[in-house]
């Protein structure tokens, strides 16, 4: 599989580090108090996955290159990779 780093261009996937599902919204900083409501929000964010068979928006880091984090859409049924952002 080849991924296109926005800085460095297409490279073999072994240069990259995977960062997981990028469609999940991290709860904004500064909103965590002590209530259980936060706990549910954070639980869902950290532990639950859509895990789709199909297009998947995800994070990658060009960890053995420029170290840029970026997102792209990959089809998990085919490993076809879209343009990075």
């Amino acid at each position, binding site marked *: *599989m080849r991924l296109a780093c926005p800085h460095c261009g297409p490279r*073999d*996937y*072994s240069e990259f*580090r*995977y*960062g*997981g599902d990028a469609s999940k919204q991290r709860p904004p900083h500064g909103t965590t108090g002590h209530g259980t409501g936060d*706990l*549910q929000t954070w*639980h*869902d964010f*950290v*532990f*639950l*996955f*859509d*895990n*789709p*068979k199909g297009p*998947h928006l*995800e994070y990658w880091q060009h960890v053995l290159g420029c170290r840029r984090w970026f997102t792209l859409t*990959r089809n*998990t*049924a*085919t*490993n076809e990779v879209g343009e990075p952002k």
Partner: protein
Amino acid sequence: MSKYSAFSLARHALDPDLPWPRAWRSPEPKASYDVVIVGGGGHGLATAHYLAKNHGITNVAILERSYIGSGNVGRNTTIIRSNYQMGANTGFFEHSLKLWEGLSHDLNFNCMVSQRGQVVVAVSPVQMDVFARRGNIMRLNGIDAELLDRGEVMKLLPYLDYSKDARWPVCGAIHQPRAGTARHDAVAWGYARSADMAGVDIIENCEVTGFAIENGKVTGVETSRGRINAGKVAIAVAGHTSHVAKMAGLRLPVESHILQAFVTEPLKPIVHHVVSWGAELFYLSQSDKGGLVFGGHIDGFNTYTQRGQFAKIRDVAECAVSLMPFTSRVRLLRHWGGIQDMTPDGSPFICKTPVKNLYLNGGWCYQGFKATPASGWTYAHTIANDEPHALNRDFSLDRFEKGNELDEFGIGNWTYKQ
């Protein structure tokens, strides 16, 4: 159905035209069952066997979208062991190993359970301490384990790299003599044959396309061969758990990842144990047919394609040659990938779900095969009693909310480590 034995083999040898009966029937689905099991893999088939054997529940259908055993029970590296140290895991996997030990007899099907022992090679004094903790817990739970020093490892595994050029030294090992391998396909077939004889309908080429849920309670499944009503529905589709559970409205702590496995040309016996390495996740054994069967880490990103990345293949080959330099001249014949459920703590689910009468078995990560008997055994219990058994109580969906993770590997929430 005729019993398999040396005698029956001889009878068939003398009369070559005497047909063997089918190992399992190919029935048309009935309109309704007490229990419908979604997924004809190792775990689903084992569940049917134990539902019949332990709970007398035989009005059961197994729905398999392809052929039985087409998932991970036929794609793994066949290792069985019970060297687990975290709470619920220890007892569960030991229960599994005990079931393995009697499985061929239980099923009247030779699953070639080979207790040749597993040796996990330690590469630092610190790692010896970490292994000691595991071994001590095993011993304290009545499980066999022994620490080996470097000299003892050299005797057991003379082909490892003991030279000064080795990347990491061999410091010793932990050895579980009762661990070993089993013939993976035979496990699926043996459970299928046994369940079928008990009256369970195994329905291949029947894909579940939806769940009928009324008032929070499941009443049946929609399939490619029509609607089938069910008193209870049990999911056992590891690899595709999220996909199937989604049809029942569930979002799970599961991602689907590819784990690759490898087999070499057949060789005369040379590796007599299951050998694992403390430096990297790497495990190898020699099949009865002679091929070296081995594997390593998952590729590291979620995918449903059963094609692995070559970089990971190189990685695993590097492990093999670095640990066992003789393997350099051994030729790889075949590599393949299986899709496994990964959970955040590396442990599985055998539990009830928020939908009444719908049960979940999945999230097996690296340990699905060795768990097969105990998974079926405890899942059957959970379905029959609508309550988990003590052995699987902690394999629940809500453990992340509670903070009751079962992190056996000690790598933390692996989704950070991808």
